């Protein structure tokens, strides 16, 4: 399956992506091979508030990629229900049928799973798989509401943050932290009132920050009509050229690999600690839940148990 996926068989790639997403031993078996087959995929993170028009912009970016005769893969992330673990992955609804069945397009929907590190493990793994299979561009679409989603976007080579006219004031934008991760800002639905004021606000906020070697451009789009899509596509390519010329391309990869390393260790520790809570640490957890033991002391006791397990 692995070799077939790398030689261009879609069905095998789809199955490989499932293996990567599940994590586990099967993934650890293929992970070294993925690194050996890495080619240098350009990862574009697309994030913004719900309803900002991310999926419609994604469809427009697919159109631009196809016009430039480039293959493009999309990982569309939607949140899982924290209660049932189920999810409705609806990003394909905005995808045109023509794009959905184009040979040069590969779209994969992914649920955020809600578990700690879930997304931050699945996404980099899936990008490595797409890279190994020869996909030159991966666009990762996430809802920019939580820290982990922002982190996913930030771990891309090029992060595009989508806002709409009338989007909050300066304080809110700063609070959201989205501006810090943006390499490109998009004001989508820019036919709505207040678009120019929003562009001015964003410009002012960008100037408040520390001077950077790359000044994030602000692009106005009307994604539903395809307007501005070519400008955004150009900005993405300009950013790539900047990264390659400045050494940032390799620098971001180094950071990203270290982040993934830490996430994988943290997630493994988290799994053991959850297991302890259900077994030898059950009494401690119960007493914390009942308010008989303070969480800090309880944590210290569980940590001792964790140390014991790791020592085995």
């Amino acid at each position, binding site marked *: 399956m692995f070799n077939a996926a790398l030689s261009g068989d879609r069905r095998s790639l*789809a199955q490989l*992506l499932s293996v990567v997403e599940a994590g586990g031993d099967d993934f650890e078996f293929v992970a070294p091979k993925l690194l050996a087959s890495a080619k240098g995929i350009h990862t574009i993170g697309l994030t913004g508030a719900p309803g900002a028009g991310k999926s419609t912009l994604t469809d427009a970016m697919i159109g631009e990629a196809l016009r430039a005769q480039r293959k493009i893969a999309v990982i569309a992330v939607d949140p899982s229900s924290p209660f049932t673990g*189920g*999810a409705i*992955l609806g990003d394909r*609804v905005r995808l045109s049928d023509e794009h959905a069945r184009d040979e040069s397009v590969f*779209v994969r*929907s992914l649920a955020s799973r809600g578990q700690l590190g879930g997304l931050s493990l699945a996404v980099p793994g899936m990008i490595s798989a797409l890279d190994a299979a020869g996909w030159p561009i991966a666009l990762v679409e996430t809802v920019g509401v939580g820290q982990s989603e922002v982190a996913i976007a930030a771990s891309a080579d090029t992060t595009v943050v989508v806002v709409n006219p009338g989007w909050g004031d300066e304080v809110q934008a700063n609070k959201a932290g989205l501006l810090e991760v943006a390499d490109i800002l998009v004001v989508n639905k820019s036919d709505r009132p207040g678009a120019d004021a929003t562009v001015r606000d964003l410009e002012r906020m960008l100037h408040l920050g520390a001077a950077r070697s790359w000044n994030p451009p602000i692009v106005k789009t009307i994604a539903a009509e395809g307007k501005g899509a070519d400008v955004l596509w150009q900005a993405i390519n300009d950013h790539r050229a900047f990264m390659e010329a400045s050494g940032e391309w390799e620098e971001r990869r180094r950071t990203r690999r270290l982040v993934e390393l830490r996430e994988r260790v943290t997630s493994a520790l988290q799994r053991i600690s959850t297991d302890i809570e259900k077994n030898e640490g059950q009494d401690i957890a119960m007493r914390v839940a009942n308010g008989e033991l303070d969480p800090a002391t309880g944590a210290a006791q569980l940590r001792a148990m964790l140390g014991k397990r790791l020592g085995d």
Partner: protein
Amino acid sequence: MTAARILVAKTSLDGHWRGINVVSRALRDGGFEVILAGMVTADTIARVAADEDVDLIGLNVGGRVEVVERILDTLAEHGVKTPVFAGGTIPHYAVEKLEKRGVRCFPPGSSLDDIVACARELTGTVA
């Protein structure tokens, strides 16, 4: 632990999204990952089922059983062996026809619990 994945697609061009929304919601609450494809052609359903590596395909039927049969043919042509179930306005005579081809049918009046139970059975997952 990965949740079972279900592709849900509309097979008619009408604007009735209520049924598909209600069923998708019930499946999500049942712990499934529901991939909504919207209104797409038979070829696209086959492509999406493969690319998304789904465990089950749910078709929302808008009265025309021929469309569903064509989708089943297309899936077979593409070598997609994923199980299929269908819901929506499926005429009585069509239920028998589709079930003969291995498609479990849920015509109007079916209970959401039954639909979710069927999804569990077809994907081999437990509650």
